[in-house]
């Protein structure tokens, strides 16, 4: 428990900045929605007629003129990318950060097993992700109410749940990567999150690349797909859970036997 609290204490500033940034972007977008709504027809026609670009971002299937469509595309991308980057950073820094800063020696010469260290680090990352998503969810719901729209609880909750699970998966995979690194891995974490985002865009653009949606968590956290089917794609989610379990498993397996430099 001491280590979890210590981790949260170290992370709270970063967590606050990321939460405020993502939340603020979503709030700003939602406050722009009434203005967009008044130009519904022209905007919807514009966004749905941009060919591959429309397909890449799901603009061809979602109606940008409705709150759900607008939220699924605009706000979904903000929370999707922002949350993924935050989760990647938190995960990849969890173990490798200690070695980069030279504090691993201090930590690991206290009576904690390596497995306990991994568990505490993982728990701290998960708590941060829960905090970020809870605050952003409440900010989003509050903003929708503030602009005078009815809150689409089911759709809103499904979207946020999907992005929450996406962040969990990315954090778990990055934790696994973190166990193999010695000098920090911010670049690797951010690169992975961005690469996974673009893999989903490629999958959206090409029907033959559909399988890529099972590789990237953005495959099951695709706003257009979730709002279209009214549920998260179960098989893709299951594949994502598999990657997350592999990431955590790799973290335990490697870190418990790793030579600390």
């Amino acid at each position: 428990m001491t280590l979890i609290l210590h981790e949260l204490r170290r992370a709270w500033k970063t967590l606050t900045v990321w939460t405020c940034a993502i939340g603020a972007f979503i709030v700003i977008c939602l406050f722009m929605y009434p203005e967009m709504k008044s130009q519904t027809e022209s905007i919807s026609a514009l966004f749905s007629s941009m060919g591959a670009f429309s397909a890449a971002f799901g603009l061809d299937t979602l109606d940008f003129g409705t709150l759900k469509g607008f939220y699924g595309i605009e706000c979904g991308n903000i929370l999707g990318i922002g949350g993924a980057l935050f989760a990647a950073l938190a995960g990849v820094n969890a173990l490798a950060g200690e070695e980069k800063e030279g504090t691993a020696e201090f930590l690991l010469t206290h009576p904690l097993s390596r497995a306990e260290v991994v568990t505490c680090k993982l728990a701290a990352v998960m708590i941060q992700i829960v905090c970020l998503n809870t605050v952003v969810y409440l900010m989003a719901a509050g903003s929708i109410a503030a602009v005078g729209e009815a809150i689409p609880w089911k759709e809103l909750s499904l979207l946020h749940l999907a992005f929450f699970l996406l962040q969990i998966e990315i954090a778990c995979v990055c934790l696994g990567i973190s166990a193999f690194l010695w000098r920090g891995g911010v670049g690797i974490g951010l690169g992975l999150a961005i690469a996974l985002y673009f893999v989903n865009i490629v999958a959206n653009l090409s029907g033959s690349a559909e399988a890529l949606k099972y590789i990237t968590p953005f495959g099951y956290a695709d706003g257009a797909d979730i709002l279209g089917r009214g549920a998260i794609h179960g098989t893709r989610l299951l594949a994502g859970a598999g990657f997350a379990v592999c990431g955590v498993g790799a973290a335990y397996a490697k870190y418990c036997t790793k030579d600390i430099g």
Partner: protein
Amino acid sequence: METQALYTEHLTKYYGKARGIRDLNLAVAPGEFFGFIGPNGAGKSTTIRTLLGLITPSSGSARVLGLDILGKNRKEILRRTGYLPSDTALYAGLTVKDMLKLSAGLRGKDCAAQASELCERLQLETGKKVEDLSFGNRKKAGIVCALQHRPELLILDEPTGGLDPLMQHEFFTILQERNREGTTVFLSSHVLSEVQRYCTRAAVIREGSIIACDSVETLSRTSAKRVTLRGKVTREDLPDAREWTELGGTVSFLYSGDMNGLIRKLAKENIDDLTISEPDLEEIFLHFYGKGGGEA
């Protein structure tokens, strides 16, 4: 057999093909004040890090406080051990007080009273952030972290770097007090004077292997003698002499050959003054690490 505080048997660590330590055999009895001498890169830190479970040995075995380092004893070993690394890296953003509290918390102990006493003795300000501390004060914070839970075994890696002489004195006073109370002290250092002054036994490590291990008194009283004389002697007369220096008519050298032979040779020369003394540990250290060293 009495359980050793530290015991290694053929302990070996390779980093890929690079040598860390090789076939290291070491035994430190409970309650000893033991010195571990060697220059940078000799394998001192590798030995310590292996004993503490930070790195896994390539072969051999080791026991700390009677517990095998490779078993599930790591937590128990660390619970009963205090460790001061050579370079004390602490969490930026925390004050010294927070850092000490964190260390105690990770041990599941309330060490506030001990921490307060140690900080007072070492004149360590606890309100400062660790990133604002000088190297010496960071070292002091590390010392308090290592000592505040009153461990049975203290492993100290180059502990006095950055401490001023007064603080060094206070630090060793604390160590001696703890040692009298039964704490085993394992002091890794290349400052030979502190090993000679405070340790009862010492081991010398060279290129990853122990090349000598004995009481400090015995190590200092090796067969090599420091010979200082005034007179006409040339190096060619004394092929067994090492560390030869000549200054203002005074010749000084280390001699580990036959003493009767030396005296017979000197008797033939015109010698004004002659002193034969035990070399200090510094000289022995240089001898061990000098070309062809290995026995003194």
